[in-house]
C-alpha cells in the first residue's frame, strides 16, 4: 500500500521534502503482525496523526521511528537519511511519552535540559527557560515532577522534547491521561505550539476528535495497515472503507446493488426496493453490491406530506424508536423496515419539537453527501472498537 500525505499548505514552501518516510515497514512479534507492509511519507512541517483503535500498530510504528523497536522488514528515513539501523539515541527524534516518563530525580528544568546536555549544546539555561516559557511553566522550573499536576507534567514532557528542535517530534497518546476539559485545552495548545515552532509532529491517538482537531493529515490505521489517509474533512466526508466510516464519526450504512448509471455521473442503487443515487466519484465501486452511506447530521426527517428536494435521496417511511435531546441537536433513531436503523442528528435551529417517539417519518439527504462503499465489507467494522481504549 502506498499513500502520500498532501503537504501542509503553510509549511510546504518553508521546508520542502519529507521529514519521515517509511518504506514497506513490517513488524512481527512472533506470529503476530503488528505493522504490515507500511509505506508512508510525512512532509516537513506538518502535523500528522496516526489514528486507530488499540492494537492497530500505531504505537509500534511510532516506536520504530523513535528507534525503540527494530522493524522486521523495510526502511525508515528521517530527513532523507536512512536511520533503520541507527540506535535511538542517535536519531534526530524526540518523543512525548504517554506516561510522560519524566525523570523523578531531576527538577523540571533539569528534565528539560537533559537532551541539550547530552548533545553538549550551548546556552542550555537560556534554551530551557525559553522552552518552559513556551509551555507557560517557567515558574515551576525548580520543582520535582512528582509535585506537578498531570497537565503540568504533560507540558514538561512536551518542553523536554521541543527544546531539542528535533527533525521529528513524536507524540504517543500524549493527552490520554488528562481529563476531558484539560484535553480539549491541550489540543488547542499543542496545535498553537506546532504552528509557532514549525516542527514536524507525528501524533498517535485513538481519539478521532483529537486527531481531527489537530492534524493536517490523518492516517487511519487498522490491523497494522493504513486504511485511508488525508485531511480530516476529506476522511470524514469521503470515507473509502467501512472501518473509516464507522471509526471516524458515525455513519448510516445500507446494503444495496448498483442497477444503473444515470446522467451527471450518478449511480442508481437499489436499497430494499427503494432507489437512491450515489455520485460515482464518491463510490469505491460502480457495479454490484455496495454499501450506501450517509452521515447522521446530513439526514433530515421529512414531515408528513413534505416533499424532498429533487437532489435528495429518500427512504422510508420508518418509525422513530428513540429521541434524545442534547441541547445543540436532537438525535433520532429511526427504524426503516427492510433497511435497518438510521441515526439522524437534527440541529436545534427553530426550538420547536421535531418528531416524537413512535411517529412515522421519511428520511431525506442530499445526493452530493452520499457515499458508496464496497458491499463485501463488513458494515459493522470499526464500530466495536470505538470505546475499548481507556
Amino acid at each position, binding site marked *: 500500500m502506498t499513500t502520500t500525505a498532501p503537504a501542509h499548505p503553510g509549511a510546504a514552501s518553508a521546508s520542502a521534502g519529507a521529514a519521515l518516510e517509511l518504506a514497506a515497514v513490517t513488524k512481527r512479534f512472533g506470529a503476530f503482525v503488528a505493522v504490515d507492509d507500511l509505506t508512508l511519507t510525512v512532509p516537513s512541517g506538518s502535523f500528522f496523526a496516526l489514528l486507530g483503535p488499540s492494537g492497530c500498530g500505531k504505537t509500534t510504528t511510532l516506536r520504530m521511528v523513535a528507534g*525503540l523497536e527494530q522493524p522486521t522488514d523495510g526502511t525508515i528515513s528521517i530527513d532523507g537519511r536512512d536511520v533503520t539501523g541507527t540506535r*535511538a539515541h542517535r536519531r534526530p527524534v524526540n518523543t512525548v511519552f504517554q506516561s510522560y516518563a519524566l525523570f523523578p530525580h531531576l527538577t523540571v528544568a533539569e528534565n528539560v535540559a537533559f537532551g541539550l546536555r547530552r548533545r553538549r549544546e550551548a546556552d542550555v539555561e537560556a534554551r530551557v527557560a525559553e522552552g518552559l516559557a513556551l509551555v507557560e511553566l517557567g515558574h515551576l522550573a525548580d520543582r520535582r515532577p512528582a509535585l506537578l499536576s498531570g497537565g503540568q507534567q504533560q507540558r514538561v514532557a512536551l518542553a523536554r522534547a521541543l527544546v531539542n528542535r528535533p527533525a521529528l517530534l513524536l507524540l504517543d497518546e500524549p493527552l490520554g491521561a488528562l481529563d476531558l476539559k484539560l484535553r480539549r485545552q491541550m489540543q488547542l495548545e499543542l496545535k498553537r505550539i506546532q504552528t509557532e515552532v514549525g516542527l514536524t509532529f507525528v501524533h498517535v491517538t485513538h481519539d478521532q476528535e483529537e486527531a481531527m482537531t489537530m492534524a493536517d493529515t490523518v492516517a487511519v490505521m487498522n490491523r497494522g495497515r493504513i486504511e485511508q489517509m488525508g485531511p480530516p474533512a476529506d476522511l470524514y466526508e469521503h470515507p473509502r472503507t467501512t472501518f473509516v466510516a464507522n471509526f471516524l464519526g458515525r455513519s448510516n450504512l445500507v446494503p444495496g446493488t448498483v442497477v444503473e448509471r444515470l446522467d451527471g455521473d450518478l449511480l442508481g442503487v437499489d436499497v430494499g426496493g427503494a432507489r437512491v443515487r450515489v455520485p460515482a466519484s464518491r463510490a469505491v465501486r460502480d457495479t454490484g453490491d455496495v454499501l450506501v452511506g450517509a452521515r447522521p447530521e446530513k439526514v433530515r426527517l421529512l414531515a408528513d406530506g413534505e416533499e424532498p428536494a429533487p437532489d435528495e435521496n429518500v427512504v422510508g417511511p420508518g418509525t422513530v424508536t428513540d429521541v434524545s435531546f442534547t441541547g445543540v441537536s436532537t438525535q433520532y433513531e429511526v427504524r426503516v423496515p427492510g433497511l435497518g436503523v438510521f441515526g439522524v442528528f437534527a440541529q436545534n435551529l427553530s426550538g420547536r419539537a421535531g418528531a416524537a417517539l413512535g411517529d412515522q417519518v421519511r428520511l431525506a439527504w442530499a445526493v452530493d453527501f452520499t457515499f458508496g462503499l464496497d458491499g463485501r465489507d463488513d458494515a459493522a467494522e470499526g464500530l466495536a472498537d470505538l470505546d475499548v481504549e481507556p
Partner: protein
Amino acid sequence: MSIATVLGEGGPQAATPRRTRARGHLPLLLPGLVYLTLFFVVPVGALLATSLYVPVPGGDVGQYQPALHWQNYTDALAKFWPQLVRSFGFALMATIAALLIGYPMAYVIGVRARGRRLLQGLMLVLVVAPFFTSFILRTIAWKQILADDSFVVSALHWLHLLPPGGRLTATPFAVVCGLTYNFLPFMVLPIYASLERLDARMLEAGADLYASPFTTFRTVTLPLSMPGVVGGTLLTFIPASGDYVNSSLLGNNTNTSMIGQVIDARFFKVLDYPTAAALSVVLMVAILLLVGAYVRRSGTEELL
C-alpha cells in the same frame, strides 16, 4: 486522605480526631516498644554503666564496682585505636567490593531478567541460599578454600599471581574476602529492590533524549537506584565494622584483628568488662557518626 483533612484544617474539631488517631497507634507499637526496651535500651544502659566501672580493690579478676571512671575510654582508645581504624578500613573495603560485585548482580536480576519471573526467582533464591546454612560454617568453608593446599592457592601460584611462599589464609585479604562474601546478600537485596521498581520507560526516555546506554545508566539508572545503594552499603558496612567471626577465623590475630575481636577477647577471655564496654560504646558512636555523615552527604533522604 486522613480524617483530619476531610474535616478541614485547624479548629477545635480537627484536634480531636488527630489525637484519637495517635492513641490508636499505641497498641500497635506496644509489643515493639516493650521488646526494644527490655532487650535494647536496658542493655545499652548497662553497657554505658559498665564502661565506667573500676576494679574492686583487692578483688579477683573480673570483679568490678560502679564508678564514673572516664579514663576507661582514653585508655581503651590509646591501646586499641589501630584495631578500631582497621575495622573501619576492612569494612569499607568489603563494602566497596560488595557494591562492585553486588550491583551488577542486582541489575541483572532486577532489570535484565524482567518478564522472566522464573529466572528472576531462581537467581534471588541463589542470592539468599547461603542463609540456609550457618554463618560460622560458611566462614570455616572459606578457611578451607583459602588454605595453603587449596586449589585456589595452587592455581594462583601456577599463574604467578601469588609469589612463591605467598599465602591467602591469615592475611588481611582473606578477612576482607570473608566479609565481602558474608555481607553480599545484604548489598544485593536492597539494590535489587530499587532497580526492580525502576520504570523501564525512564531508560527509553533517556535513549530518546540522546543518552547512550552508558550515559543513561550514569544519569538515570544509578541515581534512581541510590536508595538501594545507600541501604545496601549501610547494611554491609555497619555489621562488617563490628564483625569478629571473619577476622577470628580467616585472620592471623596480629595484623588482621578487628575491634569486634578485641571486644570479644576483652569480655570473654580477659574478663576486662569496662574496656570491652567502652570499646562497644565507641564503636556504636563512631558508626552512628559515620553513617549520619554518609546519609547526609549522599543526599538521598527524600528518596529513602
